[in-house]
């Protein structure tokens, strides 16, 4: 009796998916595509940190930009480090009484004012560029996660075999 896909591949697809999320490219390394994994890691890390370099610490913003934040979290460890840096800023801001004791739009305006004083408030055009870079890095990693998961699921471990070039039929001579 033929074995099911789950019996053939075991926990490899889930492991590849988790690794691909946590460290971009690790999913491909997990399925034996080491060079591709290295390329993916370097390019996604460079794209994400280029975004953070342009936008500063407020690029990964859980409070201001939820959708972009979700895309940025798809970069795994990179996104988590960016979020931790931003959390430190918010923890520091929470010490100010005018921010702590208010809520709603008034609190938001106080936060913006303090961020501007610290010279870390994101303003146009750096805000859109930074978030697009960091967010696109996350979305690209989503594609890599899906690819690593599918490769592990179908059991295609290692580089694919080289495809043979088709031979052109010789024209018949009379």
């Amino acid at each position, binding site marked *: 009796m033929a074995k099911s896909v789950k019996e053939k591949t075991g926990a490899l697809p889930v492991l590849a998916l988790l690794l691909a999320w946590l460290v971009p490219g690790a999913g491909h390394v997990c399925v034996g595509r080491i*060079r*591709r994994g290295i*390329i*993916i890691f370097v*390019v*996604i890390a*460079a*794209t994400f*940190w*280029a975004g*953070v*370099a*342009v*936008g*500063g*610490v*407020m690029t990964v913003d859980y409070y201001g930009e939820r959708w972009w934040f979700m895309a940025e979290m798809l970069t795994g460890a990179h996104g988590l480090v960016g979020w931790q*840096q931003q959390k430190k800023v918010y923890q520091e801001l929470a010490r100010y009484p005018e921010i702590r004791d208010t809520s709603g739009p008034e609190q938001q305006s106080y936060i913006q004012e303090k961020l501007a004083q*610290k*010279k*870390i*408030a*994101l*303003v*146009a*055009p*750096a*805000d859109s*560029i*930074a978030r*697009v*870079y960091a967010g*696109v*890095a996350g979305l*690209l990693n989503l*594609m*890599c996660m899906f*690819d690593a998961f599918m490769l592990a699921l179908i059991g295609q471990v290692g*580089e*694919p075999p*080289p*495809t043979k070039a088709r031979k052109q039929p010789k024209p018949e001579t009379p």
Partner: protein
Amino acid sequence: MIAFTLFYNPMTIHFYNQVWLVLPLCGAVAIIYKTVRTQNLRRLPLEIVASLGYMVGGLVALAVILWLILKYWP
């Protein structure tokens, strides 16, 4: 004056210079897409260049079409 710290303070970018930042982004998309899709890694650089050419060419064509519409639309 507060000293600039990389990854902490945002960079100052002129509004008209931001269009050039689309090129590295297209490059990153082309590299990742082709790294995932290609069968033979030896052909990867060529496929990346071709893919980047299609993307940039498409964006330029779109920009020209939109510019023409804006300029000559009655």
